[in-house]
């Protein structure tokens, strides 16, 4: 089974891009299963459901969605194998820019859009810099000149990744993503594979459910702002 991990900034069109890509894959009679990890709520499963493929949803609830995601990778893999899937598309929540949910030997796709601003690629961090494929969306509404500049900024952060421009509204460009997925190697098992980038350290009192503001309520792994920081 090919294991595909999709991450990206909020509202960049992750689900739309994968919807069109999967619909191309299905024409080859290849079985696809999709799983969406989110925090409190999602309707993305309905979208995937329209493709007539098996869909699972994992809501992290009170946990960090990325920690929750890693802790469930084996279970998600087992579920997809039970569905006889040839390809598993695992879409992550896409929230903070600290993490990259990518695992070695899984195809890592990062979806970002042209509207996030020219300096934002720098801030997206490992989610962008360690991706195998970067999909840029919303090109149809910004000037071509800006698209070129934006793409260049992305290349400066990650020069190795293949960059694809896809229109999330029409699916234009998604055939190329399909081809990349079909070319990708199969994975025996996710067990024992290594994350491309470590998850954030955690376990302060707020992780444990504390809700009151103030130093006296803080315990464990606490870091304070360094106000002496100069640009």
């Amino acid at each position, binding site marked *: 089974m090919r294991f595909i991990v999709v991450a990206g900034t909020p509202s960049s069109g992750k689900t739309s891009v994968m919807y069109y890509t999967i619909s191309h894959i299905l024409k080859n009679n290849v079985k696809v299963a999709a799983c969406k990890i989110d925090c409190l709520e999602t309707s993305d499963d309905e979208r995937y459901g329209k493709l007539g493929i098996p869909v699972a949803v994992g809501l992290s609830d009170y946990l960090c969605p990325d920690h929750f995601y890693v802790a469930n990778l084996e279970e998600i893999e087992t579920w997809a194998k039970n569905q006889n899937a040839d390809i598993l598309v695992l879409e992550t929540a896409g929230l903070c820019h600290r993490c990259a949910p990518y695992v070695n030997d899984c195809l890592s796709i990062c979806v970002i859009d*042209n*509207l996030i*601003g*020219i300096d934002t690629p720098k801030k997206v961090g490992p989610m962008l810099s360690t991706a195998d494929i970067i999909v840029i969306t919303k090109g*149809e*509404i*910004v*000037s*071509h*000149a*800006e698209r*070129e*500049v934006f793409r*260049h900024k992305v290349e400066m952060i990650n020069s190795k990744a293949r*960059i694809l421009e896809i229109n999330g509204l*029409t699916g*234009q*460009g998604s*055939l*190329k993503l399909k*081809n990349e997925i079909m070319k990708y190697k199969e994975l025996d098992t996710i067990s024992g594979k290594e994350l491309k980038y470590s998850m954030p350290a955690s376990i302060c009192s707020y992780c444990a459910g504390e809700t009151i503001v103030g130093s006296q309520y803080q315990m464990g792994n606490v870091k304070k702002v360094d106000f002496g920081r100069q640009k």
Partner: protein
Amino acid sequence: MLEKLTIIGGNDKEGNPENVKLFEIDAGMVFAIVGPTGSGKTQLISDIEQFIDDSETISGRSILINNHPASEFNFNKSLRYLIAEVSQNMNFVIDITVENFLLMHTKVREIENQKEIIDEALKITNELAGEPVYFSDNLTKLSGGQSRALMVADAAVISKAPILLIDEIENAGINRLKALEILKKQGKIILVITHDPTLLLMADKRIVMKNGGMNKLHITSTEEKELLKSLVNFEEKISNIRDYIRNGGIIKEKNFDI
């Protein structure tokens, strides 16, 4: 350098072979794509944009660049900016001055004589736009016409994409005929999608789409070129009336002859 684009026909929506089996577009040529909504204009453009081989397009078309299958060029970095696009739906979204943006773009394209090139871009912009654009203007504050003019100027001298796609630009605030002339001189292949007869007849050739297929290929005739002159004339008159009214003019007698 891109000299020729060849499109080899596939099938229409019903799977019947397209009437037009093959057509070629040379550099410096304006090519229009026409047809009712849903006739397959966007799919044709999409095929060209993705320049994929015949096993992959829904339409079964294939695209050759300088007589080579376009798929051979897939990983060639120099061809990744093959098509630039100017459309009515596109906007500048970066909050930055015209000058700084043009400088940024020339840097990305590794252009050496930056100052010269951005001066040229501004000059072209002002030849095309109805109202003057200055270096100090903010990109996001430009009017629709000014933005379109700047996009065309940028495509002409900075972007250097060999194919330019023009998707239905309105006449207001930009001199389209002049824009096409400037782009032709740059040796670009210009694809125009439009329902507007003036813009249509400005093309050297047009392909008529029907039911998802390329139905007819037509070379703009001398009669049509004559009609174009009248249409341009007519549009100029409308534009004069517009300017007159915008500047506070009041129509009293028959001071405008249409």
